[in-house]
């Protein structure tokens, strides 16, 4: 279960580079546990620390700027979260405390992983993102209204599919949602099994 998401106000941390891949979000060398925790220190490790594997903060990297230390929102570039499908990238973001990422586009697997873990993927055009970045002010994300606004009243709407929205709003787990349809699933599989028995052989032959 993830924390429900309704509205969030936070200063967004700008990390506007295109094609930030999951290996940059969390290098595989930082994925030392089998679980979903113990990953926050590895978040953006390649950029965040002065040397590979080290823990000395690189003062030039935005995450180490005290101004952004309470940021809950990342402002990113195109194709955010591309590369390996590792969900650790999202777990690391969650554990560190991020709740939303605003970019012009996401890699689809990454966006799906975000939703399942309570992070809201917001797609805005690059112009809006530039305006938010230059403003340097907190933004408010309103999920029910699908709206991002800055203090002066400027606002943008963003798209999100119904199911993702429902899951984020209630902090719902997709498995619970699907298990409600267990009877339908069983009926479909039974019919399919008559049609294509070879698909269901599995390891049992």
């Amino acid at each position: 279960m993830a924390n429900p998401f309704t509205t969030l106000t936070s200063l967004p941390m700008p990390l506007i580079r295109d094609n930030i891949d999951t290996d940059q979000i969390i290098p595989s060398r930082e994925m030392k546990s089998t679980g979903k925790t113990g990953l926050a220190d590895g978040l953006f490790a390649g950029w965040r620390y002065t040397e590979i594997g080290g823990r000395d903060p690189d003062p030039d990297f935005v995450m180490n700027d005290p101004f952004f230390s309470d940021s809950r929102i990342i402002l990113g570039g195109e194709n955010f979260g591309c590369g390996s499908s590792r969900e650790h990238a999202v777990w690391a973001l969650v554990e560190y405390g991020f709740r939303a990422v605003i970019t012009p586009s996401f890699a689809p697997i990454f966006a799906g992983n975000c939703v399942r873990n309570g992070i809201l993927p917001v797609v805005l055009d690059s112009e809006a993102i530039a305006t938010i970045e230059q403003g340097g002010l907190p933004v408010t994300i309103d999920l029910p209204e699908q709206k991002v606004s800055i203090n002066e009243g400027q606002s943008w709407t963003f798209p999100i599919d119904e199911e993702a929205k429902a899951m984020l709003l209630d902090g719902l787990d997709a498995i619970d949602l699907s298990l409600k349809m267990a009877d339908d699933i069983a009926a479909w599989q039974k019919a399919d099994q008559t049609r294509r028995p070879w698909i269901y052989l599995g390891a049992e032959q």
Partner: protein
Amino acid sequence: MNSLAEAGRKVADPARVFAVTDHIVDTRSGRTDQTLMPGGQAFITETRAAAKAAGITLFDVNDPDQGIVHVISPELGIVLPGCTLIAPDSHTCTQGAFGALAWGIGSSEAEHAMATGTLRLAKPKSMRVTFTGKLAEGTTAKDMILMLLANHGAAGGKGHAVEFAGEAITALDMEGRMTLCNMATEFSAMSGFIAPDDKTYTYLKGRRYAPGGALWDDAVASWQSLRSDRQASFAQEINIDASKVAPMVSWGTNPGQTIAIDAAVPSEADDRSLEYIALKKGQPIKGVPIDAAFIGSCTNSRLNDLRRASALLKGKKIADGMKAICVPGSTRVKREAEAEGIDLIFKNAGFEWRESGCSMCFYAGGESFAAGSRVISTTNRNFESRQGPNVKTHIASPETVVASAIAGAIADPREIANG
């Protein structure tokens, strides 16, 4: 599996779930559960316990069927035409080569699939990439997919399920088809697939988990209908003349940053990538000195890859000071290659010959190439530090990797083959 159990949930049908140790296992000979990867050993023992508790078939560290998931699943007949197959790894699309819808998912989706036998999925857009004509001598499936990436970029297939079709695809053996579909994810496609045909059935027949007896005939009859209608329309179509495909090599830090072996780094090359890879605009890619060579990964580590590479390597030596490694994609590939004496060709030439696994395709704090070194590699990703700290990766076909290992610099395999 553990987080399912923690949530009090069960695997719906354990017989249809398989597990293997591939990413994390050590590939040096005489291996045990110990690995150089931080946390690797704990991961292996936890996986073993969880698989046992859930009743899931596990191909363990020294199992004769162990190997990289996308190599062993076809070898064991787990993937079948028309099935939906998922794994928490982005190169699952490899198995689309069998006419399956196979794609990579995140761990939460894997949990969802195990708990419910289903996944929630938005329908992808459709794309067809048609390779007409015939491949020229010295070029391979790897060069075809790299050419697609070079021409249409690493985001070219975004949001699409891509059918690969045409004369040059039909002409590929199953291993070549797997190489090609493997990199559909580098093209940002949801998956890639190829309509099944006689080569597909011949490959699968008699494999351990493939249907047998009368069921086999029913299955083949049904699989024959798995092809696009003649008048099918696609959201996007791309045509490539396979006869124009040259041996390709990546110059940058994403797989779309790729050129033909006799081309130069483009004048519009991105400065960030160039700075990392330490090349200049206009510099010919051929002749760039390399420190290491890697043959392996779910892209190019199957028996035919090793056969073709060893045919070029036979009787030759790699350049002085070069670190060269060959990692068979599965324990079966390793066995079969050894039976043909392929291991000796690699070893005599100066290559290390490893146990199967993902090995140095990726760096996770374990074994890696020397920091900052330049590697030519049959893998699929040339991202920053993918194969070791600040390692510069050039991706290419096994033939190009062998030619380069011999030359000590990026080289054209057609020149070796001819003399």
